[in-house]
Every structure is written in structure tokens, then in C-alpha cells.
């Protein structure tokens, strides 16, 4: 059951170093051999690379406010993910300062009956000068019943 009082919760700031080897590893894991990810000292990161917050946020206590939502592991799932870049995606050598917040919690009536509860977490990514370079928007959904699709 989602704790709607988590709306507005803000995580502790954390850092994410955009690293060359990590870009190679991530590009390879997503079936990319594009030279822009592999050539030179400061290759550009892939479009979904900022999902590596999974790793970096673990190094800083209370950085991920998603835990405050208390979404059910059985009835919750990742519904949507978005990344917006205010210029080219970050390159290797960039240190990003990141901060997440629970931006929206809302209910919708499901097509097969039952209420769906959506939760949106926004993460901002700023460079050393404080300029917003990217934003992530993660949408999770909790169904009233366990997901029917368990093939």
C-alpha cells in the first residue's frame, strides 16, 4: 500500500561520476558499438545511462526517497522512464550532482477495474557550475491486485 505522505519527499544530494569505462560497459550491455561511446577520452554517455544512479545513490544514506513510497514488491512495477537532456548527454569526466524528489502521486481507474496508483520520482542532474544538464522521471505503478500477467 502506497504511503501518499511521501509526496514531496526529497532525497539527500549525491554525486555521479560519468566514467569512460562505465560508458563502454553500459554501451556494450545495451548492444551499442557506436564509436561516440568508445573513441577518445571523453565519450558521450548513452541515452539511458543515468539509470546508473542505482549504484551511486547506494553510497549516500537517504538519497533515494522512493523507499518512502513503500510500493508493494508484488503489485508494483516500473511503468515509464524518461530522460531529458538540456544539451548533449553528459560526457566522461563530468561529475554530476544529483537529487531526487517524489513529484507526483495519483490514482487512476484501471481498465479491468481496480485502482492503479502512480508515483513519479524526478531526479535532477547538475554540473559543477550548478547548471541543470539532465532530468530523469521515473514512473512506478501499483495495481490493486497482483499482476495478472505471470506467464
Amino acid at each position, binding site marked *: 500500500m502506497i504511503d501518499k505522505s511521501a509526496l514531496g519527499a526529497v532525497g539527500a544530494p549525491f554525486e555521479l561520476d560519468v566514467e569512460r569505462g562505465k560508458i563502454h560497459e553500459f554501451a556494450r550491455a545495451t548492444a551499442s558499438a557506436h564509436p561516440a561511446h568508445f573513441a577518445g577520452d571523453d565519450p558521450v554517455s548513452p*541515452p539511458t545511462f543515468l539509470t546508473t544512479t542505482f549504484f551511486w545513490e547506494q553510497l549516500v544514506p537517504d538519497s533515494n526517497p522512493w523507499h518512502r513510497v513503500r510500493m508493494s514488491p508484488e503489485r508494483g512495477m516500473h511503468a515509464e522512464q524518461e530522460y531529458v537532456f538540456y544539451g548533449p548527454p553528459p560526457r566522461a569526466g563530468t561529475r554530476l550532482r544529483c537529487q531526487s524528489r517524489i513529484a507526483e502521486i495519483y490514482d487512476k481507474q484501471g481498465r479491468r477495474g481496480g485502482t492503479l496508483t502512480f508515483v513519479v520520482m524526478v531526479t535532477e542532474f547538475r554540473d559543477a557550475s550548478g547548471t541543470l544538464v539532465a532530468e530523469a522521471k521515473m514512473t512506478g505503478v501499483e495495481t490493486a491486485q497482483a499482476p495478472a500477467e505471470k506467464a
Partner: protein
Amino acid sequence: MNVRWEDVVPGSEPPPLVLGPLTRTDFVRYQGASGDMQPIHHDEPFARAAGYQAPLAVGMYHAGVMNTWATNWLGPENVRRTRVRWKAQAWPGDVLECGGTIARKYEESGERCVDLELVCQRQGDRQTVVEGWMTFVVPA
């Protein structure tokens, strides 16, 4: 080598990127790269205890490959927005086709932009696994 603006026209989209058959190794490689170590994607007893027949594919993995289809064409440094929405689960052994089409071509704030609609479908039942939307700039 960037694609030329005049060459970005409906019908010029590259053929889909074919991924698979998916393996557990693909999931583990992606999980290590991303830092998302959720056991349901690699731990067989854990996945079965949760009611699944096998570890399920990592949604961000094939969503990432769907984005690779687009960056191979229009260039990773030109991405300005990507959004994905999951429609169904994928499993080890599935073969997925990741592709898309041009939805809109326009100029905004002095930049040439193109919006894509993307889809990742399973071969066989043609189930849509992920759909997506991306915006690229196309430098002169």
C-alpha cells in the same frame, strides 16, 4: 558521421535491430552495468518463488537497446529526450525487434529536431514489449 537533415524523411528509417534470443547472461551483464541488482532478473529460485517461470528480462535493458537502434542512426550526442513505457514482460529465449519511425521533423529555438516513435516487439506473437519516444537534434 551525422545524418543529413534532408535525408531524415519518413521511410528512411533503418531496419529494426534484432536482439536475442535473450539470455540470462544478457540480463546479468546489463545489471552489472546499471547497478540494478534486483534478483528477479537473474536468481532462478527467487523468480520462481515470486510466481514466474524464469528470471524476467530487465525492462531497462531492452529499452536501452531500443534506444541504441536510434542512436546508431542519429548519433548518441544528438539525443535530447527519451521516454519509454513498458507494455509486457520479456523472457529468456525471446527474440525482440527494436525499431521505429519518424513522427515529426521541425525547427525549434534555432535547432533542427526530429521526434521518433519507437517500438520493441517480440518475434512470434508480435507482442509489444516496450514503446518509446525520442527527440534528436540534427546538426548541420
